[in-house]
């Protein structure tokens, strides 16, 4: 009933496509983080002129589907003569650049909101204490607020990373042969959609598990202070052998 031979036969292509997916994910996440950090700080700022433009940006990026954003950048911009004549065309003519740009802006907007939320959740007392010690605003941000905010943001960010992994499948709509693109071509060649798409679904699943595992390690390392205390309560008062 099922024919998984074709999947085995095309494993090299699938591996190549998996690498493409990972590259899309890695580059857009990295660039997105670079964009998101200043935007997140600005978004959490009390100064309206700083926070408001970022609110507009994240509102637009989070309020429209990533597929539409990708089509606007890839097909939409190419419609205009002045874009095609411009110096930027070598970049915008590349499907890779357009996909990475759309993904970066999208994940940048979501991540900025995650960071802003984590910054806002900083206990006011910590900030006040730092101020009273005479730290400048910049020092408070870099020494007190950001280190704890970035930790707090970790669980929400792990969700964003996994959503982005799945989001990269949209690259297949603009001629990039990522995992989903490879599945489409496998399907087109063999007319076996179940096997083709199941194979890449499994690969996505494995990648997701790997990412979840990585984040669990990171959380164990950086969010240790939020977990249950590791001390033995028995040692506190009852045990006579408590040497310390």
């Amino acid at each position, binding site marked *: 009933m099922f*024919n998984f031979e074709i999947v085995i036969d095309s494993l090299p292509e699938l591996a190549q496509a998996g690498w493409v997916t990972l590259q899309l994910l890695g580059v857009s996440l990295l660039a997105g983080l670079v964009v998101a950090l200043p935007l997140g700080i600005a978004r959490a700022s009390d100064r309206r002129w700083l926070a408001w433009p970022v609110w507009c940006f994240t509102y637009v990026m989070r309020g429209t589907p990533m597929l539409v954003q990708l089509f606007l950048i890839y097909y939409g911009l190419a419609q205009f003569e002045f874009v095609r004549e411009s110096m930027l065309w070598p970049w915008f003519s590349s499907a890779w650049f357009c996909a990475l740009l759309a993904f970066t802006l999208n994940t940048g907007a979501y991540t900025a909101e995650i960071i802003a939320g984590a910054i806002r959740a900083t206990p006011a007392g910590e900030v006040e204490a730092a101020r009273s010690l005479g730290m400048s605003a910049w020092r408070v941000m870099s020494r007190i607020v950001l280190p704890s905010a970035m930790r707090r943001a970790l669980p929400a960010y792990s969700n964003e990373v996994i959503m982005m992994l799945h989001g990269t499948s949209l690259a297949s709509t603009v*001629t990039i042969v990522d995992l989903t693109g490879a599945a489409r*071509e496998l399907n087109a060649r*063999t007319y*076996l959609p179940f096997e083709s798409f199941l194979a890449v679904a499994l690969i996505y699943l494995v990648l997701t598990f790997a990412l979840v595992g990585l984040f669990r390690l990171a959380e164990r390392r950086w969010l240790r202070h939020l977990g249950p205390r590791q001390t033995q309560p028995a040692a506190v008062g009852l045990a006579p052998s408590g040497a310390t």
Partner: protein
Amino acid sequence: MNRITSLIMQASVAMSMALFIAPSADAQAKKLRIGVEGAYPPFSEIDTSGNLKGFDIDITNALCAQMKRDCELVQLSFDGMIPALQSRKIDAVIASMSITDERRKAVEFSNKYYKTPARFVVKAGSKLELTPAGLKGKRVGVQRSTTHDRYIADTYKDAKIVRYTKQDEVFLDLASGRLDAAFLDSIAADIGFLKKPAGKGFAFAGPEIEDRKYFGDGAGVALRKSDTALRDEFNAAIAALRSNGTYKKIQDKYFDFDVYGSAPVAAGATAPAAAKPAASKK
């Protein structure tokens, strides 16, 4: 409260009844669901008010009228046609699908209802040499899983093949300069692109290509392997449209030449259903 619950109950019972009854009623009426593309002008496209139109669509309607069948047109992307056919989401495909030996392994075909050659389209005045060496590293756009896709993949191995889900997208990227060439059906290229404003500054290049190994015997109606009776019905209807002048009437709406192509396909071309080379596949 009670009345609302009973109302919901009645509604759900009625709905499940409808679900059970529908298939058997369908078997009586034999409504044909036909897969069409809607993105392959002038054969199949969507007009400004959202309706399907084109040569394939008119032929489909004429065939259904000739066969006295009630037909429902289902719009699908081309690479989803054969899977949809096999999973019984549709009963036939009328989407300019070429009758090739490769596809014959998966589906049954009627006789052809038209046949046109394939050709390259490039920027007018382009010096591109249409040889395997000349297209090395060049970006050639094709619609995914078409005969043109296969031909380029096999013949121009060093070309950078860029595959699209829809022909329209190939045109968009050809016009914007993302592609060095496109390879496609000559009529689809001529009427769908070259004669439109977007196609200004582009032209055919190289000869018309009619390699039977790739392009087969023209476009036919694709059906499930088991539906041989339906195939015979379609064959009879195509022959009837050809002889009673309906075909010419439809064709003259779109073309100023005979798209049916030269010699009609030999009767033996539709291989007997008994020989099922696809049996090993599923």
